């Protein structure tokens, strides 16, 4: 890999990891959500680097657009119901850190032992290719997914609905 590529990747990695740390360590809930947005966008960049253009776009649209918006909404609404900004402290960091480190260690350990050969160049997977997969090999999960989305929508409405007095 060329130096530029390494640099690019490193920056992306730093942004991602830094944003993640911001999400979990921030004292302000809104800040946490915004850090998450940063992570999601940076990940989209990573996808692009990995020749997953369509996915990068979907990531930005759905995650950074949809999810983050939803999260902000929820934060505002809950704050209103709670009667003030939501406290965002964290507790029990030591043991959590231990577990997280263990997870990281385990996963990296396995990873670094693995032999993965990467072909030099691969055919680019574009939206058309993905579309063909959806309607071809993965048509069933695709249809089920649409049912799931409807169910989720209805479920969310049903749960959050205010009961009529």
């Amino acid at each position, binding site marked *: 890999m060329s130096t530029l590529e390494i640099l690019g990747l490193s920056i992306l*990695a730093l942004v991602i990891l830094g944003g993640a740390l911001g999400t979990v360590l921030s004292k302000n809930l809104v800040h946490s959500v915004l850090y998450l947005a940063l992570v*999601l966008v940076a990940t989209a960049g*990573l996808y692009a680097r990995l020749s997953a253009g369509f996915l990068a776009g979907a990531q930005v649209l759905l995650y950074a657009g949809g999810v983050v918006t939803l*999260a902000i909404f929820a934060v505002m609404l809950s704050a209103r119901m709670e009667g003030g900004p939501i*406290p965002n402290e964290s507790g029990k960091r030591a043991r*959590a850190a231990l577990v997280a480190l263990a997870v990281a260690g385990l996963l990296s350990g396995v990873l670094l032992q693995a032999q993965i050969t990467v072909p030099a160049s691969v055919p680019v*997977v574009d939206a058309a290719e993905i579309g063909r997969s959806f309607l071809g090999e993965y048509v069933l999960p695709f249809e089920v997914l649409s049912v799931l989305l409807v169910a989720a929508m209805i479920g969310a409405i049903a749960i959050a609905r205010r009961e009529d007095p």
Partner: protein
Amino acid sequence: MSEIHFCLLLAALLFAIGVFGLLTRRNAIGILLSVELMANAVNINLVAFSRVHGGATGQVFALFAIALTVAEVAVGLALVILLARTRKSIDVTQARDMHG
């Protein structure tokens, strides 16, 4: 270490950070955000391997994962709002009804 290894390692670290957040955060939305991080890490993994093997499978699954996560967050946040409405607090340490 190749590019792919790098990405996979990154995903692992991101996952670990998500775990940390999951175990640490006291309010429900914070926990959901941590779960988001973990899901994101998984997606990175999927896309990286898609790059290795060629074909669309990895990306398709990543898309599925995104869609699922979106649905999950929607329902989760609906629950958070319900929680806030009924208990006037979304602090998970306050919900101790299962205390043995």
